[in-house]
């Protein structure tokens, strides 16, 4: 699966539609590089790209925490 396909799978979750107003259609057209202010999207994108870099779970968890501290 590509990073984009992965991100779209997560964005297709009902929570995004119900809580953040990201519709299924929007999710389906989302590009990995699309800018977003949504912290959850940012966190997931961080997780995906760090995983693709081969980082360990601990490192990625730490990174997500750091990203969300901003």
């Amino acid at each position, binding site marked *: 699966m590509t990073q984009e396909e992965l991100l779209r799978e997560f964005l*297709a*979750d*009902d*929570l*995004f539609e119900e809580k953040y107003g990201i519709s299924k259609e929007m999710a389906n057209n989302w590009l990995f590089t699309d800018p977003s202010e949504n*912290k*959850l999207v940012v966190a997931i994108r961080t*997780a995906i790209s760090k995983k693709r870099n081969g980082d360990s779970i601990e490192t990625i968890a730490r990174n997500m*925490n750091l990203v969300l501290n901003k």
Partner: protein
Amino acid sequence: MIIKSIVLTNFQCYFGENIFEFKSGLNVVIGDNGAGKSKLYDAFYWVLYDKTFDSSSRTMCLTRDVKAKLVSDKAKLLCLLDGKIETSVEIIFSNNEKGDEYIIKRIYQIYRTDTGNDTEFKWRESSESQLFLYKKEKYLEARLIKNADEIASIIKRILPNDIQPYLWFQGEQVDGLIDFKNNSTLTNAINVLSDIREFDFFVDLSKRALESAENEFRKEQRRLIGNNQKSESLDNEKKKLIVKIERLEKELSEHRDGLMYAQEEQEKLHGQVEIAQHIRELDQEEKQVDAELQKLENDLKNKIQRVQKNLFTKFWALKGMESLVDIYAKKFSSYENKKMEQKIEQEKSLEIQRGVIKKLQSRLPINVPEPIYIQKMLEEEKCLVCNREAPVDSDPWLRIKELLEREDFEIQHSSSKSVIHNNFQDQYKKLYQEGLGLQMRMPRMNNEIHELLEDINVLSQKKKRVTENLERIRSDIQELINSSSINSPHSTNILNAFTKHQENIRKYDRLIQSCDHEMEVAQSRIEEIEGDFRKLVVGQLPQTLIDKVATISDFRTVAVSTRERVFNRLILKLEEEANKHYNTMSAENKSIRGRIRLVKQLNGNYMPKIQDSVGQELHSINDANIILIKLSVIMAIISAKKSSRAAELYPLISDAPTSKFTENYTVGFCRTVGDVYSQSIIMSKDFYMNEPLLNRLLNEVENLGNVYIIEPSVPEDKRMDRNDLEIKIIRKH
């Protein structure tokens, strides 16, 4: 990555250099038993894993365990004094997209050490084989990789260990890939071969990230809490509750396993329990009917005994003798009359006698005078009463003597009376009277006999019906036993086991409910504690921290639910794909095949089941179908992969995958394999000496790569040993 070629040199039955080249698509190596198909499979395996299959122990053995057995016997025979034999296998893997190639070569050597005078050759065997890996990048010369870690990493990339069992297997191993008795094997296969592990990673990551964020949150919370004692107490309670929830989760999982086991076992018995129940009911009915029959037989015996008894006690034996009674009555009447007449005669005679006696009695009473005096009077010739003379033979003397004879008459009379002692009149009369009584009783006796005989008849009829019923029950039982192979004791065992599983299902249901309830209570208390914590906080927690925990908590929710959604979608896709493959492979087989359903078990695992058109599970599927289902599911996992990475990157290599199939599955199997895998190498006996089937392979299967026929140089029946053995490789496509 595809396999471009394999070169086997002096490897087992492959004497000298033997080259097979392969293309994308389905490559088939055809050969009879003993032609070298399995050795070719071994060669692939040996290069990557340094192991070959030992047919005697049926295990994979390392080179150091088999040593010179790896080397061709013909090569050994032709080896000169002090000579060396090199056994090697070389495989070239090619990455079509990048144009890179990996050349992997494994070598094993033995050295001849005998002097030539020995009766047999002697060898010095290397203890280990050597592996050489070359990487050839586009336009560059091949480069030998020396770093062991790099070699291991490349081999892992060529074929990861966890994927290998699903892509490189012998026919007999298919059964174990998805074990119908172990419901985690399909889940394992899905986890290994599909993208779901990617989502598992994010589920784990979200858990870790949330723990980390919550720790940070609690740390900050504790810093701002005024009442440390209270917070410590709440914290301890929360920790205990968390431990409790973990324990309950474990128990819940055990109870679910127990419930699932009980349900599965009960399900297995489902087909038998109805028959067992029927047999038990028939057994009980047989006992009842048998008891009824026993009672009837006893009643009948008693009635018959009563008849026999009544023959004499109630004179039933005389039944039909009524006319004899009449005859007897007549005869008795005649006897009575005659007797009466005799009596009258006798009376008359007696009357006369009585007259005489009376006459005599008018002069002197009997015994007066007494005979002794009479005798004296006769002797003295004188009447002692009147004192007159009575000379001998005179009239007075004769009169006196007459008195003595009177005595004789009395004696004579008495003697005539004694004749009456032989009179049977009383007995005759009794018989007559009894005859009359019998005649009187006869109508009643008739009724009694009629009633008793009627009873006997009814009982006999009933006995006949009950006996027939008993025979029918016994025949039904026998029929059931014959058709189901379940006998009476077995049926009891089945019903007992079924009841036991039913009880266990109820028990585990209760335990699960109880655990669920306890967990809910504990969870709810944890939420209360969290609320209490918040109340204890003095001051404001940083908003960034609150937002972070909320965001990561959302990430956790999204990761878990996405994983579930993707998995459920995958299951549906797998079902669809598995059925597509199953239908293609079994298209030419006319047997009922049903539809593959992946059924979720209580513990969350999935099991393939075959169901009919109304969703009923089909049991007693034959071995070939089971293998087909397993292969269909494995192929489905690969073909359903969105990116098809496993199918694209890793070739399928299988020795005799269709060994359990009949011919009408083989072409379907090849078509499916050709569709699913970008490259596959199949060793098969099915097409050997079977021109029609071979022609179908060559003409009907798309994506066909190279097809080889391998034959031993010496036919097996003319081969005493392997000293002359080499393999002829004939390219057919």
